[in-house]
């Protein structure tokens, strides 16, 4: 029983990380049709920005305070990187989706290589607040505290994005654009401005995901963003390519499946079962991949 509780909580916590990583991808894909391979670089940028910030802040500050500042910087860096990439690299290739993907592929290769050149390929340890490294006893299970943080952040992000989509003018344009970008333009609305905003938003979410993932892993490394990205892709596909609620559900399912399979089958089976889950979803419901924003 306590094992199961532990697995469920760690699984949902992992799912929360996947959601944070996938939400930006899903928004960008849903609205613009751009598969953003550079999302991993955005995450890496966020992780390193937070790591550098935490290192630069005075040692006298508590780790938690430095982490909060680090998160804010990471989110800002992610947003700026997203904004610049959209304006400089993506926008000139509007309507050329393959070229847009190719550019983000080039960016992901160059970005990881640049980080490797500057900070080396080896993981660098990050400081974790003491409380996040601890555990809490619930129902006889010793649950790692950091998972609750990820879950809380993910729920807040999900609620915030839903509110944005349903309560604001920007959200209305995004939802309409996900259904039919061309018609939004044909109604006299400047979709490009929305694209830029959404890319910056996605970059900010990626920056956040990057920091939290480095906290989860206990280190920053250049390839970290890329490995999280692959699971984020899977989550986006299972979730229905561009549906925010679908992405949230898929993220939790993927996190749970991975943890449960790793525990009850064998270590490493979790990753495989996630891919099998993807194949299963494709075989059973290929039409669910059309995408709508909800």
């Amino acid at each position: 029983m306590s094992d199961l509780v532990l697995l469920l909580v760690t699984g949902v916590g992992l799912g929360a990380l996947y959601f944070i990583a996938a939400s930006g991808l899903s928004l960008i894909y849903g609205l613009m049709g751009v598969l953003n391979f550079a999302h991993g670089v955005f995450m890496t940028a966020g992780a390193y920005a937070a790591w550098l910030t935490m290192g630069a802040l005075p040692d006298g500050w508590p780790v938690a305070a430095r982490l909060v500042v680090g998160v804010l910087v990471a989110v800002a860096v992610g947003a700026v990187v997203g904004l610049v990439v959209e304006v400089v690299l993506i926008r000139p290739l509007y309507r050329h989706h393959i070229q847009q993907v190719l550019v983000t592929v080039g960016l992901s290769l160059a970005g990881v290589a640049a980080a490797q050149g500057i900070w080396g390929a080896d993981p660098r340890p990050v400081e974790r607040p003491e409380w996040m490294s601890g555990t809490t006893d619930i129902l006889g299970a010793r649950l790692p505290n950091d998972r609750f943080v990820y879950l809380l952040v993910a729920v807040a992000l999900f609620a915030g994005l839903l509110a944005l989509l349903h309560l604001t003018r920007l959200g209305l344009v995004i939802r309409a654009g996900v259904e039919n970008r061309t018609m939004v333009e044909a109604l006299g609305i400047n979709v490009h401005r929305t694209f830029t905003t959404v890319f910056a938003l996605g970059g900010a979410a990626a920056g956040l995901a990057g920091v939290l993932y480095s906290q989860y892993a206990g280190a920053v490394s250049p390839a970290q963003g890329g490995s999280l990205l692959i699971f984020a892709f899977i989550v986006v596909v299972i979730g229905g390519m561009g549906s925010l609620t679908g992405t949230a559900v898929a993220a939790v399912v993927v996190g749970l499946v991975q943890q449960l399979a790793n525990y009850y089958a064998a270590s490493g089976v979790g990753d495989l079962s996630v891919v099998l889950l993807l194949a299963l979803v494709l075989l059973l419901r290929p039409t669910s991949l059309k995408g709508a924003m909800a």
Partner: protein
Amino acid sequence: MTESNPSAHESSPAAPVLTLDDVHVRYGGSHILQGVSFDVPATGVTALLGRNGVGKTTTLRSIIGLAPRTGRILLEGREIQDRTTARIVRGGIGYVPEDREVFGGLTVEENLRLVDPDRGVDAPVVARLFPDLVSRRGQRAGTLSGGQQQMVSLARVLLRENVLLLIDEPTKGLAPKLVTEVADVLAEVHRTTPILLVEQNLPLVRRIADRVVVLDAGAVVHRGAAADLVADVDLTRELLGVSMRRQGAA
């Protein structure tokens, strides 16, 4: 090219609201518009006719920049072919696409607020022309009937001040009663705003159109008064491949 009753042109001496000058559209290896030129006068309804696949929809799309085109397009004398679609539309061209293209996942209200963030369904024009939509404001547009969707599509364009409306087959697939309703709306609207109308329903054309422009194989083959064309059974059959008798009345 045939040109019946040139006086139809002279009857609108004012400068045209829209001019197409040698517009070409090439898409995926096919040359869809091959030098289309015509004027849309600043009053009344100009019907753009032709058989299926001659480029009527492409002509409308090229005007607002949804189709990649070359040539000159002038709105009230100013060249607009280099502007983005959104800017052209904000410059006063309302576009009602074929197949309505309402946002099915959005409510009626949201569909309208997209264009007019402040008033949406509460705009006077909606109450006046589309009273049905007011009571359905919270309904998802995707669950509306075809006729209701057409009303949403028309209403959201009319929320803006337009100098010209491009309307593509508004009665396509509608029951006769709804065709009449749409025709009533168009008849009301064209008193204040000129319309370039693509329409297959010839009785409707006869009812509301003043002039016709006929396309064939991506080029203009006929211009003239609407009444003259629909009165001439042979010419109608030659240009459009249909006859009035077979079509029935609106």
